[in-house]
């Protein structure tokens, strides 16, 4: 029971990170129907930006309050990663719009390879650890066998930040003109263009928003694991994509739900079965969902037009 509760907490923390990345996949797929293969590497890049910003703040500028430093790091990482997202769309995807179907996917794979090796070249191949922070835990209760269920400050911060940002994001997409244009382009790009929506700008915005949320995920990932390396983009990226597919690709609540499910499955699998095969479990879910339930939990089934 106590182990279960502990894994539930861990799983939800991990799941919120996956959910944040998954939104980037699902929005881009919804609006231009392409799998943004480089999104996982954008996430990794954002973790590096967060790491360096954090080091600058704490060691050079001498900010001792971790909470204040984290807040600044979060904002800086979001802004700079959003700039990366915008540039990638502008350079690698926009010229290919209207090109043949495989071109954007190949280009995205190229961007993914470029980004991970770019970070390797400029930052080195070794793992980069952060100084320990927010190690304190709140013991919720202690079981009869002495197993304490603990909630660490890090986990509280991760879940709270995710919840707040998702609420803000939800407001942006549902209640603002920007979000309305975005949803309109998702439904019918040509019609939206005829009604005076700047489609190119809206697509850029989608990439900016997706990268911004990936930066939140990257900062939270750094906070949670305390270490990042240039190769850390691929597997979380595929898992987040699995989350997006599981929730129903194109659906925003679905992405978050899928992220939480993937996070829970991964932690429970590691706790009860074998930690070595946790990635196999995630990839198997991806394959099984795509084969048997391609429209996901909350997605609309795709109608094949003849």
């Amino acid at each position, binding site marked *: 029971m106590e182990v279960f509760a502990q894994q539930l907490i861990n799983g939800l923390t991990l799941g919120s990170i996956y959910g944040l990345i998954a939104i980037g996949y699902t929005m881009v797929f919804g609006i231009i129907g*392409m*799998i943004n293969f480089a999104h996982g590497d954008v996430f990794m890049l954002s973790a*590096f*930006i967060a*790491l*360096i910003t954090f*080091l*600058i703040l704490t*060691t*050079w500028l001498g900010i001792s309050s971790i909470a204040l430093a984290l807040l600044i790091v979060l904002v800086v990482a979001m802004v*700079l990663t959003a*700039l*990366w997202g915008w*540039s990638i769309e502008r*350079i*690698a995807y926009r*010229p*290919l719009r209207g090109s*043949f*179907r*495989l*071109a*954007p*996917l*190949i*280009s995205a*794979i*190229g*961007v993914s*390879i*470029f*980004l991970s*090796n*770019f*970070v390797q*070249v*400029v*930052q*080195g191949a*070794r793992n*980069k*650890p*952060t*100084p320990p922070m927010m190690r304190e835990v709140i013991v919720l209760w202690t079981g009869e066998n002495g197993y304490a269920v603990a909630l660490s400050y890090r986990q509280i911060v991760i879940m709270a930040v995710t919840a707040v940002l998702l609420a803000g994001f939800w407001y942006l997409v549902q209640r603002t003109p920007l979000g309305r244009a975005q949803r309109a382009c998702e439904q019918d790009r040509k019609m939206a263009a005829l009604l005076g929506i700047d489609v190119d700008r809206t697509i850029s915005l989608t990439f900016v928003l997706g990268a911004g949320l990936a930066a939140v995920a990257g900062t939270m990932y750094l906070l949670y694991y305390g270490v990042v390396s240039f190769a850390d983009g*691929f597997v979380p990226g*595929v898992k987040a*994509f699995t989350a997006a*597919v599981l929730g129903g690709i194109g659906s925003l609540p679905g992405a978050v739900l899928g992220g939480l499910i993937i996070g829970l499955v991964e932690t429970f699998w590691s706790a009860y079965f074998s930690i*070595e*095969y946790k*990635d*196999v479990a995630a*990839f*198997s879910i*991806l*394959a099984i969902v*795509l*084969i048997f339930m*391609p429209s996901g939990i909350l997605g609309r089934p795709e109608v094949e037009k*003849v």
Partner: protein
Amino acid sequence: MATPAPAPAIAAAPAAARPPLDVAGIVRDAALFALVTFGLCVPIIAFRTDLSETSALGLKPRWGLVAILCGLVFLGRLAQRAVVANRDARRALTPAPRQATEAVDATPNAGQRVSGLALPLFLGVAATFPLLAVLGTGGLGESRYWVDLGILILTYVMLGWGLNIVVGLAGLLDLGYVAFYAVGAYSYALLSTTLGWSFWVCLPLAGLFAGLWGMILGFPVLRLRGDYLAIVTLAFGEIIRLVLINWQDFSGGGAGISSIPRATFFGIPFTADEDGFAARLGLPFSPMHRVIFLYYLILALALVTNLVTLRLRRLPIGRAWEALREDEIACRSLGINTTNTKLTAFALGAMFGGFAGSFFAVRQGFVSPESFNFLESAIILAIVVLGGMGSQIGVAIAAVAMVGGPEMLRNLGFLSAVFGEGFDPNEYRLLLFGLAMVLMMIWRPRGLISERSPSLVLKERKRISGSFVKEGHG
């Protein structure tokens, strides 16, 4: 960045009806580019994180590098805008005959035309490559590097041709092709180390196993279409790799399998002792005999792949593949069994991947799961797409460019004189590779060879442009 600022020169050039060049606008635009570059460089390039002795991360500022990069982007954009403005001004003066219509690239241009001469030339070079390498470097031992490079390129040519059946002919996007390469490699590695079977027995078996795996994995996924199929095949590829890493008892785990028996000349080993290859032929012993033998082995395997593909294209099954790529619904309504057709393409492609895999194992003498990661799949797919999907000679050219090109970076030692000590051009291999994939998609999405020869003709054989060839839905 050859020509930094030709803008003023153009503005000053006397032209009657030429509109004035917007120098301020161009400079502002270039400055914006430099500003964005600055934003991208901060802080990821501006600070390098290094582990110090106290195992805490230290920061090393590199503002000079950022300034150089921003400057290069500024000058590059300036030059590009100036060239484009110049071209546009010239075009405005001499209206093109087809100005109002869109550019229709129905006929391949001269540069893309592969003449009848190119094919024999290519084959001739491939067949005599070891000889050329020996003559070029001046000795059997010295040519080792070049022959090894030739083997590497030919392995990718073969993998590209194998994947071309799946992607180029049947139009099924496979991102997990390396899984079948791995199945072939591990088949040979396990059969030869545990049962002691020879390469020539294991080679067909490896192809068979890989083909079988192609069927097993292909059957459930082939109803998926497009990007979904790509992702599922990627997932399967990763699952196979992760299982190979974690299943210690079966595959030796991450350490892999070593001391795999080396290739023999149809039973005669390449050793220095009396019944070795060299002694029997009365030649002085050289380890290069084995390498040259391997070269011709992979050349033969690749050519077999090519021949089988070319023959299959003329059979009903091959025509069904191409029809499937062009229009799946029409195929179904004409009574083609789409599942079986896709499955044969998948299994055949996998089989050739398996052959290549067992060759890889016998060449290396060592296999580990790290040789079969997603990057390999991406490289093979990039070769097929850059070659122009469905074009056999294009795939070969792309393999030479994509595998041989980055390899050339190793030889650019003189660059360290320009960029300072410790500069290793090899580090930039994959970075440039990724960049090349993006640029190729922008510049020539249809691949290097954008013409196709139809597999069936009515009266005369004509070449058609790749723009008329669809890329399939699956």
